[in-house]
């Protein structure tokens, strides 16, 4: 069990937004496969088809994608909201907009549909007009977070991009604006893959976000920076595929660990598998998750077999606020 923003989760694992979360049935199945908190595909202000294919390509070391934020539109999902109303699992609703007003409009409506929390996607690189602009500028991140916080009744999570020059400062701006948690990271890049025989980029959108094992070091660094900048909990994700990856993310400072591309490599059952590996690792090291959260920030290093030596206190001496 894991407690997060007052929500009881059966595991500390989260389904990343944009992965599978297209209907209540598959969200329920992912929860059944060991995922504590499942995230819906980002919901936008207007119906949007996303990009033509190719949109998602596996590169072995991870994936590149530019799906392009497809959405039926927040007010065009009645049947889905109805199906989700009877759910028996915690639900995170990801939303996006092209302006602060759109974010607020979508957030207000979605909040009324009763998700357990709302995640603002201020970090998607795959649209020319949505998302990422808010995630690379402290003032914009603060403004959109504050605007959404005002109109919702559930906890607010800010999903951040590694493209920010100083992700800690963005996280702090979100915290100051009322964010209850940070989720990091969205896809890295954007990158590009050119087929040299076709002589053109493989993705129809040409560029796309990078995910999977190749971005894990970036994700770990971002979570580490965010942990030192804020005192709210962090969902750490980016390239996590194994229990040991999850431990690494916890040590960087994550309270929960998310997975997305890992579904490609280990199937939907990856949540059960990683949870088992995590429990095994913690058991073998005679410690627990709470004790390893932020462990890598401890100046003395390997002291986690003595749980009391790593404080789980949010005002831990290892975390400091950026100016």
């Amino acid at each position, binding site marked *: 069990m894991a407690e997060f923003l007052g929500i009881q989760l059966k595991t500390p694992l989260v389904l990343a937004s*944009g*992965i*599978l*979360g*297209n*209907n209540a*049935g*598959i969200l*329920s*199945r992912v929860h059944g496969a060991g995922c504590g908190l499942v995230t819906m*595909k980002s919901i936008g202000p207007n*119906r*949007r*088809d*996303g990009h*033509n*294919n*190719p*949109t*998602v*390509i*596996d*590169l*072995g070391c991870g*994936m590149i*994608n530019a*799906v392009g934020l*497809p*959405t*039926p*539109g927040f007010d*065009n*999902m009645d*049947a*889905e909201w109805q199906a989700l109303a009877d759910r028996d699992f915690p639900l995170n609703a990801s939303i996006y907009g092209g302006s602060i007003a759109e974010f607020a409009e979508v957030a207000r409506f979605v909040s009324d549909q009763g998700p357990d929390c709302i995640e603002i996607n201020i970090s998607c690189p795959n649209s020319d007009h949505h998302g990422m602009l808010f995630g690379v500028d402290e003032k914009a991140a603060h403004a959109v977070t504050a605007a959404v916080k005002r109109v919702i009744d559930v906890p607010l999570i800010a999903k951040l991009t590694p493209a920010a020059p100083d992700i800690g400062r963005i996280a702090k701006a979100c915290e100051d604006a009322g964010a209850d948690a940070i989720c990091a990271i969205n896809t890295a890049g954007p990158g590009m*893959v050119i*087929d040299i*025989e*076709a002589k*053109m980029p*493989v993705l*129809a959108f040409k560029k796309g976000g990078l995910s999977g094992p190749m971005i894990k070091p970036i994700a770990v660094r971002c979570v580490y920076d965010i942990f030192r900048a804020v005192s709210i909990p962090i969902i750490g994700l980016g390239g996590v595929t194994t229990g040991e990856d999850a431990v690494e993310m916890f040590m960087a400072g994550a309270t929960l660990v998310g997975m*997305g*591309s890992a*579904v*490609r490599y280990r*199937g*939907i059952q990856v949540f059960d598998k990683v949870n088992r590996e995590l429990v095994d690792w913690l058991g073998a090291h005679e410690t627990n998750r709470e004790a390893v959260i932020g462990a890598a920030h401890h100046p003395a290093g390997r002291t986690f077999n003595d749980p009391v030596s790593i404080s789980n206190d949010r005002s831990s001496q290892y975390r400091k606020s950026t100016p």
Partner: protein
Amino acid sequence: MIFDQKPVMVQVARKTLHNPCFVTLFFDLAIDFQPGRFIMVWLPGVDEKPYTISYHGPERFGITIEAKGRFSNQALSLSPGDWVGIRGPFGNGFDIISSPDVAVVAGGCGMAPLAPLVEQLDPNLFFVHGARTKDFILYPQRFAVKRYFTTDDGSLGHRGFVTDLLAAEIQRRTEQAQFEMVYACGPEMMMHAVFTLCEAYGIPCQVSMERYMRCGFGVCGACVCSDQVVCTDGPVFHSDQLRKMTDFNRTALLKSGQPVALSEYMSWRCQ
């Protein structure tokens, strides 16, 4: 071989025009195969779509394309020597039962994934193929085994539905020689009718489903049908899965992810 990462560019080796609506493109590539599996076909600058493997040999495979919309018409106009990108194979194929007591039910271009299956099944199978008219019968000369035809206009074989012949054959059979498996691919309404008929007689079946796809390997969720991911859990589904799939013959997602009635989805897919 498996080429399930970045597309591999290959040249069209041969092109067979079956009739004005159906073309098979052949590629000289050794690819892992099981009847029912599919590949993603990329036409650079156009789009990328899933196609089932309809012919398979050690060094060559083929995909059969029906003229429907923008992409398929572009694919139809390809000539030997033209380049396309291939990813795959993806998905689960048909489980093959070694018994003469099996039926294969094809509707229209649903023949494509079933054709290499028929070539691997017992030659004494019961094989029925329906189409609009005799001009829309795919692979009219391909098989050595007996094939029963149905057409909407009676221009070939029985005038009516494939399920008319399947139902009659199920009723004709004794309990000892009843079908051990029914394989079907075609319009979803037809596959649902086959499934419903089989359920009434306690006969297991496998059907190959179609949904709009993006990744092909089970992460993006574009092709979900109830709680099943068509590209990785399917595209071939067994009766025990179909029973739980309330979206089967009812709901499919548009490109936006919006769930709509199957009829609305089909009219969009044929644009």
